[in-house]
């Protein structure tokens, strides 16, 4: 069993896999460049007010919540 959800909806500390990025060309390229590619393992470390801090491929990123809405993640249940 698994579910697909926007990255922003993932509970903190739970790992998921990127399945899709629902973004326009520019943004998609940017995210891909930073390692947000299909099947990359991503995890939310903490959520702050304006943004959240995630790890992907052992890298830490800070990203806006709007951005995190566009990254679809699969997690096992």
């Amino acid at each position: 069993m698994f579910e697909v959800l926007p990255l922003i909806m993932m509970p903190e500390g739970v790992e998921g896999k990127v399945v899709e990025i629902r973004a326009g060309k520019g943004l998609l390229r940017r995210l891909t460049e930073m390692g947000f590619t299909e099947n990359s393992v991503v995890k939310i470390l903490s959520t702050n007010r304006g943004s959240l801090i995630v790890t992907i491929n052992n890298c830490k990123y800070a990203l806006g919540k709007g951005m995190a809405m566009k990254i679809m993640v699969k997690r096992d249940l």
Partner: protein
Amino acid sequence: MVTKKITVALAGNPNVGKTTIFNAITGARQHVGNWPGVTVEKKIGIRNYKDFEIEVVDLPGTYSLTAYSIDEIVARDYIIEERPDVVVQIVDATNLERNLYLTTQMMELGSKVVIALNMSDLAEQKGDIIFKEKMEEFLEIPVVKTVGSKSIGIDRLLDEIIKEAVKGPHHEHEIGYGNKAEKKINELENIINNDNVLSKKYPLRWLSVKLLEGDENILQKIEGSSIAGQVKKLLETADLEDYEAVMADKRYDSINAMLPQMCLRCVKKLTVSDMIDRVFTNKYLGLPIFLAFMWGAFELTFTMATPFMDLIDIVFGWVAGFVAEKIEIQWLASLIADGIIGGVGSVLIFVPNIFILFFLLSILEGSGYLARAAFIMDKLMYSIGLQGKSFIPMLMGFGCSVPAIMATRTIEDEKDRLITILVTPFMSCGARLPVYVLLAGTFFGKDAGSVIFAIYVLGILAAIISAKLFRNTILKGDPAPFIMELPPYRIPTLKASAIHMWDKGSMYLKKAGTIILFGVIFVWLLASLPWGVEYGSKDSFVGVIGHILEPLVAPLGFDWQIAVALIFGFIAKEIVVGSLGVLYGVGEDEEALSTSLIDEPSIYALNALGLMVFTLLYMPCVATIGVIRKESGSWKWTVFAIVYSTVFAWIMAFTIFQAGTYLGYGI
């Protein structure tokens, strides 16, 4: 007795216990079908409660009400087309924030919502304390605590459903999306209002919001209506991608503003690095910590550099004296001693400062802190109309504007980039530091460190104000949404920091060796010609130029020597110091220049402060102007940068001098 019918839709994120609530309400009386046209399961149940017959429709679990998946479209269409009397949103009490995102969208849909705060027992076990009354107050939605698995709170939920269903129209809770988006929403609302069919069928604001988000499904819905053409025309001019992200951010902003008051969050386990991040990137602590680091770096720089400066001072003093003694030809001795050694000496004396500052910045960079600093600044940057990426060039601007402006190439958005290019020169570069060191050291004594720090802060403020100004006038738009890497914390190595320091510092040295050398010779020539005039006197060429400009700078409290020094500062800003040295006829070392400045009646604390501010802000040096021309690709923007910064500098220095004089800080 007549039973009244109420239809209720159950909505909520997946895995929040929606089905258990559904079962708890309807018991066995349910039937399963499919939503029309799609293979999504549709469950309907009936419950008789008090004198009502309640039909409950279980909507597919969704995270939001965008049109990304069929589930979302089904849920949304049901609420909007079938208009159930009440929508019950099942909220996972253990994860309020993400659940409330859906709530904000429900509220926008204009439906009557009741929240079932499910799994509230688990939340309490976890240590979350949720204030139900506060939730009701902020959301203007009734909230019922439930535990679906134990059928706790179901009757109270039904009571609230009935209360809402029989109630008249309710006040709609709106989320403000910020001026820019609101303006567009307003325009859309006005257009849609002209279409009788659409404006009756859909909530006006919701429709406009969805259109602005570029919702494909909604675009289809308005297709063929009388206003489709107008709407499309309006949307073509907007970057919907950005709006969508900005509006999602705003929804979270409003949730986050309410959240701390609605829920006392439980403590979460953290790693050391995360703990450091929690502190360093904290909303309240982050900025003060960042400022404290910067202030500490400048203080330390000033303290540590002093012994080295004294040493260089002695060496140059000795060399100049030696040369003056040994060279017989008088003009040559003057050129070498006064011009070259004097000028270059007064520039080289600041090498310790610059190297130490770069070393400390390298340590901060190597430790991984600088990326956090950028992260901390992002919210601020966004609020001033720039994005996180703009912070890096601006930070580099503390070193040298030239590489900093070149670094703006990583910014993809054209407007973001241009604004960054225009404001980066306000970040006080290393070349300006000697000017502050000399003037603050001379006139402010032990407060020199604090004064210099204040100058740097002023530079940052000037950049902020200008960015905001440009964003609201000549370069309208919103900055792109941000994403930024945070490298792991590391203990910086001495070697790496030293190499970094040398790379940056040697750039300054090279400049001191070339441009500045020519600069000071040029100054010396202008100060010595025509032949026979007293060196740097008012009859020399510089004197003539300075006197022509004097009326322009007089309101700032500057005399003609300062005017001349500022002209030469165009070659490179550190030359301001060298020129002052040459012009006041002392030159060779800082101590002598410092002493002569104290004795000089035309310069004193107040206009020295004005001079520092003017040096900080006025037109960028020739190398920076060259790179602005290259990176902006336009002479128009280059000229604009020169004129804007000089006018800005003049106004600031004027304000300081006139206000200071008025307050009695003059001579």
